[in-house]
């Protein structure tokens, strides 16, 4: 299990570090919408971590090595959670450092937490897909999602700038974020983490069905 942790962990660690620099860039950049930059880009970090670690670690071999499907899932779920948690802490710290007005900072914090929950859901979905279909069949979905989330993130910011709404108050989700009580967002965060670990604990982590007799 420690072998697997080391192997997968390298990719998640690498992405945590690059995410730190993204957050740091959002702090020093002058462009007004950059407080939301890390939250919008978080899913691509998760997708890329899963894509690279799965490709490198050799999914088919795990089906014959002395490690159970539950242990594999435990490693992957904990790593994905650690990545999201570290990224969320980064986002939170850098949002605090940005010295934003209180109401705006509150919205950015809400966005950061919702992005983290959404990314956790994405992590669980990708691992379920990998478990049932295997890397060779599911890789197109993961690589496709990585590309899509990357393109979406870039297009989102270019679109904001082009539409002339690249000021913090012009962020498309601002009205919804402002109207959502912080307590509700907090509850969504807690519920997301609980659901994630219930899935890991209860999940039907048995082997996938054979393709032929």
């Amino acid at each position, binding site marked *: 299990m420690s072998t697997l942790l080391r192997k997968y962990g390298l990719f998640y660690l690498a992405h945590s570090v690059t995410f730190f620099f993204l957050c740091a860039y959002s702090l020093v950049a002058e462009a007004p919408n950059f407080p939301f930059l890390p939250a919008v880009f978080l899913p691509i970090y998760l997708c890329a971590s899963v894509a690279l670690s799965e490709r490198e670690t050799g999914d088919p*071999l795990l089906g014959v090595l*002395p490690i159970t499907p539950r242990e594999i899932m435990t490693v992957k779920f904990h790593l994905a959670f650690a990545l999201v948690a570290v990224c969320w802490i980064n986002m939170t710290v850098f949002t605090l450092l940005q010295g934003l007005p209180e109401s705006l900072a509150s919205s950015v914090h809400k966005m950061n937490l919702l992005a983290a929950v959404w990314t956790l859901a994405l992590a669980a979905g990708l691992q379920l897909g990998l478990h049932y279909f295997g890397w060779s069949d599911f890789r197109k979905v993961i690589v496709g999602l990585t590309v899509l989330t990357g393109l979406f993130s870039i297009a989102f910011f270019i679109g904001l700038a082009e539409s002339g709404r690249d000021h913090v108050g012009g962020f498309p989700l601002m009205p919804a974020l402002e109207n959502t009580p912080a307590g509700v967002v907090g509850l969504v965060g807690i519920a997301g983490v609980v659901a994630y670990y219930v899935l890991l604990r209860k999940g039907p982590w048995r082997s996938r069905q054979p393709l032929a007799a």
Partner: protein
Amino acid sequence: MTPILETRGLSLSYPGFDLQDIDLRVDAGSIMGLIGPSGAGKTSIMRLVMGQVMAARGELSVAGLTHPGDLKEIRGRVGYVPEDPPFSPDKRVADIIRFVAPFYPQWESARFNDLLGDFGIEPHLQVKHLSRGRRTLLSWAMALSHGATLLLLDEPAAGLDAARRRQVLKLMAEFVADGDCAAVISTHQTDGLAPLADRLAIIDHGRLVLSGETEELLAAWKWLRYRDGAVSDELESALLGHERGAFGNRGLVRDYPAIHNQLQAALAAGDVQVGNATIDDILVSLTGGH
């Protein structure tokens, strides 16, 4: 005798296929030939042992360890050569081994490197640059290098030339020779299996249709060649693979020693001749040759 592999009532079901009530026993120091046509369920049994699929019913144990609770330990005790070697094409052989070795407490690097050398596999090569046969040999080298108790071989000579096939079958025989280990060889090609396999199990359409000691089966199953009227109608109707030809008739009898006495007169008169059956003959007669 200690069973290294034992299954009772093992059953599995998925769309288009059912494996039903498979009872197998492989004792220490023995080799079992698991044979049957393509799609009969041989690979499913292997996957059940490796925990790649879970049984719907039944019991499965390897060296006293039981499914599903002891799956991790079972995988550690099994040297598995799957039909499709499970290596990512872009990986180098050396990288695969660096990843695999720490999973096995008894990994024998020297043994593995010796086998790679014997098989002519360069560690720096990527899997995609290995032929099908070399990938199978890489599986063999892994299976034989971690102190396994049971060798599970699924079409283990796929892609191998005759010399390599002999080489790996010799390694299998050496593996069980000390009496503490066992091997199961699954194949639909039975050439050369008779001298190796102590026991045979024939699977067809997910069911165990015959099992027993190889010697006993080959002693019991015989071809009868006979002239019209030389055998009783009852015996003739019980023959498998019965053929009626211009130069006589022939058919396969399941239990020759049981009918030997009633054929003595016909044998003495030359109206009946008895010939040895091969494993292939038995397999084809039981599975219809599909």
